[in-house]
């Protein structure tokens, strides 16, 4: 599913405060600061694969909108 298609079910908010990424032992929930402290290679990998789920104030936001704020 593309980001544009996914936008229909997502909050129009921009930015994010929480993110869930896949990990070796299942999904990991990270704060924004923790996500930003991951190595760039890892963050880029999640974004290319579209496996990072972003949230702002409890509402899911698209990766595109998450990166805007």
């Amino acid at each position, binding site marked *: 599913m*593309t*980001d544009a298609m996914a936008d229909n079910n997502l909050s129009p908010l921009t930015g994010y405060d929480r993110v869930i990424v896949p990990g070796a032992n299942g999904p990991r929930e990270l704060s924004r600061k923790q996500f930003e402290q991951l190595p*760039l290679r890892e*963050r*880029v990998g999640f*974004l290319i694969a579209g496996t990072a789920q972003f949230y702002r104030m409890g509402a899911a936001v698209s990766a*595109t909108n998450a990166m805007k704020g």
Partner: protein
Amino acid sequence: MTAPMQTLDAAQAAADAIVERAEARYDAHRQEIFRATDRIFGWLMIGQWIFGIFLAVAVSPYAWEGKVKTIHAHVWIAVILGGLLSALPVYLARKHPGEVLTRHVIAVAQLLWSALLIHLTGGRIETHFHVFGSLAILTFYRDWPVVITGAAVTALNHFFLGVFWPESIYGIANPEWWRFLEHAGWVVFCISFMIIGTRRGQKDMRVMADRSAELEALSENAWRNSSVIDRMTAKAAGT
């Protein structure tokens, strides 16, 4: 190799390429700042030389040996020592801009210029402001070791001139032995915040490069999810 494996490899290769480009952008940005600051100092060195000569001519143009009027040593010091102080930094700024050695030589020369201007004005306390101005301009590099180099030069200079030629740096013959510590203390106070500032500036550049990589990754994701890719993957899986 199966189609999903090929897709995974391609994604990893794309991620590697994006990170490499981000690193290259970060390095290029830093180089641009180093070179631009080298150019500023190249011109500043020439300006200071001219100003130093003007100062020597204006403040103490002549000396007297009995009834014989001669050019004051300060004028020669400004012309010759000032010229030597400026020559190497100007050369390095023009021929080797952006290199580590260039900015450290510039830092040394700039703070020695402070000492020379202080000397030429007879140790005037107001000319000591040149030290703080110089350290501030050094922060343009956004490279904290350069600020340390400048501060070390000024501390050593105050210590040695304070011991061997106090009139040159303080304008008096017998300052307290700890006077250089007082000056160094204010410099340390000042550079502590300058270092925080330069580190923040450097971090901001890193964040900008990372941000551009993340946006590139999003674009890559959108491209990979396009119908063209879906068709290619389906076709590859079918063969």
